[in-house]
């Protein structure tokens, strides 16, 4: 039965389902959690890293790049941060696509791409793989945290089928159900970035498998508007900045944790 309807992405099952898409989404629900919260003056993203260990070389993450350690959170454009859950290799290809789509928009219109339009661009690509034969869909869900002149701060989510939607707070990856119900309880309209940061970290600490949070398991980013230039300012935290933030939020790991990377 299943052999007949899931060997190709482009074939509907008799119940009218596309199994490959559902499998892709299933793969994502085992991936590291990515969580986003929209505030009135910013957007916050946090992600759980799965690839850890004391032999992993993270020297590149300490300096250079845009911050982050290059597993879950990426700068897509000067006004958009993306958090990915799913197959990392697929995600890399989508990030490349997003960055060049954003730059092409800048070239054509001399204006930063609108957040929704960037999500649409990626969804057009993702949708293509649910329809044209021979290829596997992207096993990636993305959270887009962005700012543009029309709708100000925004948070979008896109899945492997090419669906996307806007959110006030949402979560993808492992334990996303738990996180979402937590967010539903805790979220209030008109929260500011500071409250959103606490909310994100608190929710993360409750959903993640490990009992204590630390920079070797967490990536973190905030998008705000620079009060001086009025331009969006994307900040992806470096490992030492994450530890400092966790400490100030009272969520830092105790010294008994053996996972010291330095």
């Amino acid at each position: 039965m299943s052999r007949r309807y899931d060997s190709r992405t482009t074939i509907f099952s008799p119940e009218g389902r596309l199994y490959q898409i559902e499998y892709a989404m299933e793969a994502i629900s085992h991936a590291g959690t990515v969580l986003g919260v929209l505030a009135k003056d910013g957007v916050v993203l946090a992600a759980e890293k799965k690839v850890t260990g004391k032999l992993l070389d993270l020297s590149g993450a300490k300096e250079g790049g845009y911050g982050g350690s290059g597993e879950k959170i990426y700068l897509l454009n000067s006004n958009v941060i993306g958090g990915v859950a799913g197959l990392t290799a697929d995600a890399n290809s989508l990030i490349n696509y997003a960055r060049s789509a954003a730059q092409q928009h800048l070239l054509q219109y001399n204006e930063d791409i609108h957040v929704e339009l960037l999500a649409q661009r990626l969804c057009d690509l993702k949708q293509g793989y649910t329809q044209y034969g021979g290829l596997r869909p992207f096993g990636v869900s993305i959270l887009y945290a962005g700012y543009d002149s029309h709708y100000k701060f925004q948070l979008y989510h896109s899945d492997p089928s090419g669906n996307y939607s806007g959110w006030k707070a949402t979560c993808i990856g492992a334990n996303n159900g738990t996180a979402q119900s937590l967010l539903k309880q805790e979220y209030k309209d008109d929260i500011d970035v500071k409250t959103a940061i606490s909310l994100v970290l608190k929710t993360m600490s409750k959903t993640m498998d490990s009992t204590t949070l630390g920079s070797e398991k967490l990536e973190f980013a905030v998008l705000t508007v620079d009060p001086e230039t009025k331009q969006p300012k994307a900040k992806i935290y470096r490992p030492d900045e994450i530890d400092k933030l966790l400490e100030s939020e009272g969520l830092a790991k105790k010294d008994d944790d053996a996972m010291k990377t330095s």
Partner: protein
Amino acid sequence: MSIMEYNGGSVIAMVGKDCVAIASDLRLGNQALGVSSNFQKIFPVTDRIYLGLPGLATDVTTLRELFRYRVNMYTVKEERDIEPETFAHLVSSTLYERRFGPFFIEPVIAGMSKTPAGGLKPFIAATDLIGCLNFAKDFVVAGTASSKLFGVAEGLWEPDLEPEDLFETISQTMLNAVDRDAYSGWGVMVHVITKDKVISRTLKGRMD
């Protein structure tokens, strides 16, 4: 009438002591008719590279957008800022792509480049409209007032000028050269790039 003189405009860059300066006029004209007195020809490429684009105004905008695109793509792929030498070669190859139907622009590049020891040293360069690079140790000029700029700069420039003195030198060079050129003028924009900051000033000059 040459197409290089259609809109008018000039740019100059100078080396100082641990700093560089780049200046341009602000005129946009249609031959002898002035259209705008606020047409920027110098654009920031990174925090410590500035690019001057004198020549045909349509290509000023086109190249400005094209270089921003290529530098941004470089930055996201490399995850670091481009170095002035690398950028100069990007400019050169971008212009040479159009060897037989060129952009009518003679770019000037000014920036501070990293030394192997970890410090910063001044860098200036200019190319012709098909991308032939000219790395200079003192100053480079381009645009409709280039011949006048050469003369004044030759007289005023001296080695190892401090940022404020370099600002004065490049400003006087520019203001006096464009006064003798009908196609340049209508204000001057000056940027002095030092190790830790960029000083940008707009000068009024003769507005006639």
